[in-house]
């Protein structure tokens, strides 16, 4: 196979799958979109094997309703993503403060009183929440999470924070 058909195959695959996947995830709002594709001879005899010839080219009448549906799907997906990542961030912060407070009880209230040498707090499932040695065995952010917290903001977070107001009018 030469380079040119390979490139053509790649581009048509990316165009088709990326347009189709997102609406499918949201319950199949629409299946096709022709915004970025021109009904030319190339896409009609597309080497993309699974679909019928020219399946990426919509009718003119279908274009408007499907386009708006697709826009709605995109918008709801972005909103969902934003909500999801905000929730993840909240969960992370609450988790870390949770284990810190248990460690405080062990260090200052139990061992700090001088009446006990070692102390621990465990959950009713048997997981250790805090011990004297300060090694949390459960409910502790894993090392990778700690590295993430100390590193600059993640790509998705920064994307959501900065692009949310910008993307909003774009997808209406």
């Amino acid at each position: 196979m030469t380079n040119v058909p390979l490139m053509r195959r790649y581009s048509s695959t990316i165009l088709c799958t990326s347009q189709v996947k997102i609406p499918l995830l949201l319950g199949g709002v629409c299946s096709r979109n022709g915004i970025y594709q021109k009904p030319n001879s190339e896409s009609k005899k597309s080497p993309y094997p699974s679909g019928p010839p020219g399946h990426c080219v919509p009718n003119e009448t279908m274009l408007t309703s499907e386009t708006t549906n697709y826009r709605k799907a995109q918008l709801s997906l972005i909103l969902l993503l934003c909500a999801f990542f905000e929730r993840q961030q909240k969960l992370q912060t609450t988790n870390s403060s949770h284990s810190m407070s248990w460690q405080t009880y062990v260090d200052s209230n139990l061992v700090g009183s001088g009446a006990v040498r070692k102390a621990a707090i465990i959950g009713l499932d048997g997981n250790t929440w805090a011990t004297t040695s300060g090694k949390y065995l459960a409910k502790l952010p894993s090392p990778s999470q700690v590295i993430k917290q100390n590193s600059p903001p993640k790509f998705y977070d920064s994307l959501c924070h900065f692009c949310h107001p910008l993307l909003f009018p774009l997808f209406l």
Partner: protein
Amino acid sequence: MSKEEGTKLVAAFKDPSGIRANGLHVGGTRYITLKADDRSVYGKQGSNGVVTVKTKQAVLIGVYDQNQQPGNAANVVEKLADYLIGVNY
């Protein structure tokens, strides 16, 4: 405090027959059971001992050694347990 020890200790608050027969294992040490009811389990090994009290969502464990008074240790752990039960933990 391993997970196995933890689950056995939590189960002992419901049914103390296991720790009465085999002893209470905390942090790799085996303690003889002094007292076991649905709120607190006390254990003793030589002049060391352990005080464990169950709250609503957690179990507090305190270990004292020969330089510390068992009564003081029990007092401290029970007080913290009372506080945690009071705030629904």
